[in-house]
């Protein structure tokens, strides 16, 4: 994750951490009690706070998160998100995603534009079980950036080497394509 210089961003981990720092890669520097997703040790900068699971989700559900970045298996033009059920598995994982998708002021989905076998993941209507309804505001894929508003998927940027037409060709929902769709600049 790249954080811009000079900006303070508070990172929240659903396990009950607010204000954690970068991942610590040196095992001698790492504090095993300060991890995210249970396995990644992170730094404890000044101001970090710990809490219980229910407090963490009170914070999420109560609307205190500005942005949630989630993975996706499918999203559709109504902003429905499916990222739960893997094909062939006997059940789906929900994790904290339904609460994050509901509670965050903005939900950004970060995912590949198509599946590994080339199937589109951006559809008119999700076919997989939903994780959360009507929640996705922005979708960032390996080839494009899109906003979702009022039943419309609006193409905002394309990756270097991609055109709006090429992106539409691998998208199973009609995109709204404004006059100017710039290339993504990192």
């Amino acid at each position, binding site marked *: 994750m790249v954080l811009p210089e000079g900006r303070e961003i508070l990172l929240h981990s659903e*396990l009950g951490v607010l204000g954690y720092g970068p991942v610590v890669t040196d*095992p001698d520097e790492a504090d095993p009690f300060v*991890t995210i997703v249970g396995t990644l040790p992170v730094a404890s900068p000044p101001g970090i706070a710990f809490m219980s699971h229910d407090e963490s*989700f009170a914070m999420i559900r109560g609307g205190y998160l500005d942005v949630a970045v989630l993975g996706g298996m499918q999203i559709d033009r109504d902003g429905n998100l499916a990222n739960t059920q893997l094909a062939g598995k006997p*059940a789906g994982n*929900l994790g*904290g995603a*339904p*609460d994050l998708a509901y509670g965050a002021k903005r939900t950004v989905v970060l995912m590949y534009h198509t599946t590994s076998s080339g199937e589109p993941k951006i559809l008119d209507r999700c076919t997989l079980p*939903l994780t959360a309804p009507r929640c996705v505001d922005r979708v960032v894929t390996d080839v494009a950036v899109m906003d979702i508003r009022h039943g419309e998927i609006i193409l905002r940027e394309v990756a270097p080497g991609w055109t709006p037409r090429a992106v539409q060709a691998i998208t199973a929902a009609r995109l709204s394509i404004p006059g100017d769709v710039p290339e993504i600049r990192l």
Partner: protein
Amino acid sequence: MSPWNHPSYLVAAVARRGATDLIAVSTAMGRGVARSQEQSRWLPEDRRPTDYFDIGLLAELGRIRKGITSFPVGARHSLVYPFEERLARGEVEVEVIGQGSLAERIRSARAGIAAFYTPVGPGTAVADGKEVRYFRGVPHVLETALHADFALVRAQRADRRGNLWFRGARTFNETMAGAATVTIAEVDEIVPLGELGPDQIHVPGVYVQRVVERPRAPATDWRALR
């Protein structure tokens, strides 16, 4: 769920006692003995804790009848842990619920709240068969308190009154304490009464009925006695 915030010795004790037909409530259903080392893969292999026995052990042994959890399966096709194997064979049941509603159901049980309405769930399978009611135009699903017979939690320090102190994220350890008929806390250190000051105590002892201190020398086998 990690070796540092998990009540491994209590899980191992449940396994040794032979308790079976269990309904297990947990964030995830664990990885089992063979793969539990993955949880501390950020450490070199020779420094990973050997005494991490997660709930996957109970699934492996066939002691679980039903899981109530947010992560019943592995996150990738290639990751299949014991609970998922049994689920695929129809040997266990599962109730899948999001972390937020799971946490609030458990908290409610401790707090004497019979049920609550949450805006998370409507429009998804989680709300199937449950009452949905509108508040300020927003659909909310009715979730009920989730009380257990036993809560197994892990903290770093306790006193003899059951007051608990945690390092790091307090997770479901704090949430579950008191949400069961009997809460048992596994801790690294039991300290004299008074050493945990009033502004340090995270869980008041009234929520905890038993405290167990972990052994100094880590076990390498869940079958070994303390």
